[in-house]
């Protein structure tokens, strides 16, 4: 995962990429866009199942689906895990810091005011487990791509530009009434 950022007075810009080959020379033998899209039918459902599994087992909570009148994801907490190999991209989670703290507290079986710095660790590990669960559910990719260590960003003052220029799969859940986004951005 390549990252560069501008700090200081300017808004932080974070560029992400996770790839095994050069962007300008697509790997020979890779499927065409149309074939790829067809083979990726149902991946949004797989992403949803992966997130639900992790929350049910590790957080002890069932994720709900958002309704039309749900508020937009007002995220100031973002976790990302890069995927590289036969499948390249970035899996990200976004939610509010309050929801992230609540989630960490439930994972650890402690009160929210005791969570402290565990919140970044818990949020990053959750992202990592969702990426792993997703990967294990797609035939043929479990052994042929690797996951990066998680990166967690707190705060709202940044713009995210993913160099993954392919498909995007996003599922928005409700975690204890608050929106929670799980997104997979794929490269090529």
């Amino acid at each position, binding site marked *: 995962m390549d990252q560069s950022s501008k700090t200081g007075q300017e808004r932080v810009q974070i560029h992400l990429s996770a790839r095994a080959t050069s962007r300008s020379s697509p790997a020979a033998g890779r499927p065409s866009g149309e074939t790829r899209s067809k083979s990726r039918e149902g991946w949004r459902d797989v992403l949803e199942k992966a997130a639900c*599994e992790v929350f049910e*087992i*590790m957080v002890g909570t069932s994720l709900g689906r958002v309704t039309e009148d749900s508020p937009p994801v007002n995220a100031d907490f973002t976790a990302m895990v890069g995927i590289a190999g036969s499948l390249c991209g970035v899996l990200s989670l976004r939610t509010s810091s309050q929801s992230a703290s609540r989630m960490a507290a439930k994972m650890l079986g402690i009160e929210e005011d005791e969570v402290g710095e565990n919140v970044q660790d818990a949020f990053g590990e959750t992202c990592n487990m969702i990426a792993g669960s997703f990967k294990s559910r797609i035939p043929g990719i479990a052994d042929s791509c690797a996951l990066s260590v998680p990166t967690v960003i707190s705060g709202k003052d940044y713009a995210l530009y993913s160099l993954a220029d392919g498909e995007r799969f996003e599922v928005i859940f409700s975690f204890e009434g608050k929106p929670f986004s799980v997104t997979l951005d794929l490269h090529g």
Partner: protein
Amino acid sequence: MKPARVLIVDDSSVMRKIVGRALRQAGLEMEQVLEASNGSEALTVAREHPLDLILSDINMPMMDGLEFVRQLRTIEAAQDIPVVMITTEAGEAHVVQALSSGASGYIRKPFTPDQIKERVIPLLRG
């Protein structure tokens, strides 16, 4: 079964706490729970403390779980300690690689206390 001396290896302190809690929920009585955040630290702990069980992540900085278990098996006193890998990497090749490196078992994250009970507790000797 006598209370176990356990080492939990993971670069995430949250995961170390969760694994420890899962062991207790699985009914394992523990005399001592030691922690390490990478394979290198874990080797130092394993050289200095008698252990009955090790649970280790694979993807860690400094030294990963596979290299850790390979080096652990070269320590005479640690050759028979059960080592269970707990990781998000669940492909068949990863499992084969872990077992051929010297691991005794493999559990995929996310895991339940029942999985710990079924796959970890039987590895402990009385």
